[in-house]
């Protein structure tokens, strides 16, 4: 039986890990390779590097960072941020990434999901969806929430699945950095709409929020970042709480 996963996200900019609230007010929190290794040792099931600068120059920096990380990290690594073309996905995988997250590139041209899945397999294609509440449900937004797309998040999640995404990284822009808990309604609505795994993101403030995302939210994995970087909790504390709640979890000795 598959374990529910704790995915640790490192927002990177110019080769450093940064953290901000709602993609602004960035603070430097450390070296990506060292942090990734620390989280693996604590029991993280996967690492995500999200490049929040996302210019073409920074993409080369991101691939270089992935290569240096993959030399020492022995759990799956996902790269996201500024990856637009099938060729970028190939470069990311060759640099040592196991999966690639596509966000605004997929919104702009959904065919890119199919092209990547056909070439490299659905298991490495992650559709990254940023969603914001509106009067009727949730709208897909891009550029860290600065730009609305008019797409309904549920319909878009279904389309991503149909086009070949192997997984959905679902971020609540309303909750991002707020530490008040994941948007469980959003997560459970999307989880019920598709068959592929959902990684819940945005809003983790403590271990019990993670439990809620994995049970009531119906997510297969929960993404955590800031609360770990600020040492408010650890991956092992989160996993202890999961085990106590009866959630299938991978334990490290």
């Amino acid at each position: 039986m598959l374990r529910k996963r704790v995915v640790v996200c490192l927002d990177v900019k110019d080769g450093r890990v940064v953290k901000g609230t709602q993609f602004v007010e960035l603070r430097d929190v450390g070296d990506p390779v060292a942090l990734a290794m620390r989280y693996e040792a604590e029991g993280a099931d996967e690492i995500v590097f999200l490049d929040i600068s996302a210019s073409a120059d920074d993409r080369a920096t991101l691939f270089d960072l992935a290569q240096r990380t993959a030399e020492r990290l022995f759990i799956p690594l996902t790269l996201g941020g500024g990856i637009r073309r099938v060729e970028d996905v190939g470069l990311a995988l060759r640099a040592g990434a196991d999966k690639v997250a596509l966000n605004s590139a997929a919104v702009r041209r959904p065919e890119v999901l199919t092209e990547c899945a056909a070439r490299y397999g659905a298991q490495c294609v992650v559709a990254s969806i940023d969603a914001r509440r509106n009067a009727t449900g949730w709208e897909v937004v891009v550029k860290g929430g600065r730009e609305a797309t008019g797409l309904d998040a549920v319909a878009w999640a279904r389309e991503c699945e149909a086009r070949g995404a192997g997984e959905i990284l679902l971020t609540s822009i309303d909750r991002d950095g707020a530490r008040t808990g994941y948007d469980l309604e959003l997560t459970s609505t999307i989880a019920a709409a598709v068959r592929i795994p959902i990684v819940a993101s945005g809003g983790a403030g403590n271990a019990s929020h993670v439990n809620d995302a994995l049970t009531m939210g119906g997510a297969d994995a929960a993404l955590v970042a800031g609360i770990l970087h600020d040492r408010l909790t650890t991956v092992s504390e989160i996993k202890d709480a999961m085990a106590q709640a009866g959630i299938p979890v991978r334990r490290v000795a």
Partner: protein
Amino acid sequence: MRVTILDYGVGNLHSLSKAIAAAGAEPVIVDDASAATRAEVLVLPGVGAFAPAAARFVAAREPLRDAILAGLPTLGICLGMQLMFDASDEGSGAGLGVFAGRVTRLTSEAVPQIGWNALDDPTEPLLAESGLREVYYANSFACRAVDPAIVGAWSEHEGDRFAAVVRRQRSLGVQFHPEKSSTQGVAFIRAFLQEAAA
């Protein structure tokens, strides 16, 4: 120790090379299957699809099979394990036939299986030696061994119980990715290499 990784021409062998290096050996990537028959230790990696990979070693299929059956220690990972069986529903071409059986699609609704899963009923000694109990999978297909006695551990995904580890002499096939299964996964590779060197 030099460990030969056979490249089917599809991709990322970076992580696997680094895991072999971390386990204390020297990885060498070759794309010529006949050169692989002269390897000290052989690794068949786990990226790509069955048909193009099988086509890649079609000319060297018999010598490669003979070398493995004559005692060349071989570790097949994911697709590499599947290539050690007879044939696959994923695509045309003959596997090496080191293990009797066919590769079929997972029967679960959620395919591919992506994530960490448990190793059930482990009897393979290298698992206990390395402390490996939970492993990382990214697979849509699984190997159905004719003889269940060759299976050294199982995993279960939504009701489909499939072979996680198979063994014949000093050759192993693993459906999971030891190079992505953290410290214990690297320890498993090290244990395999130590047995191969003995």
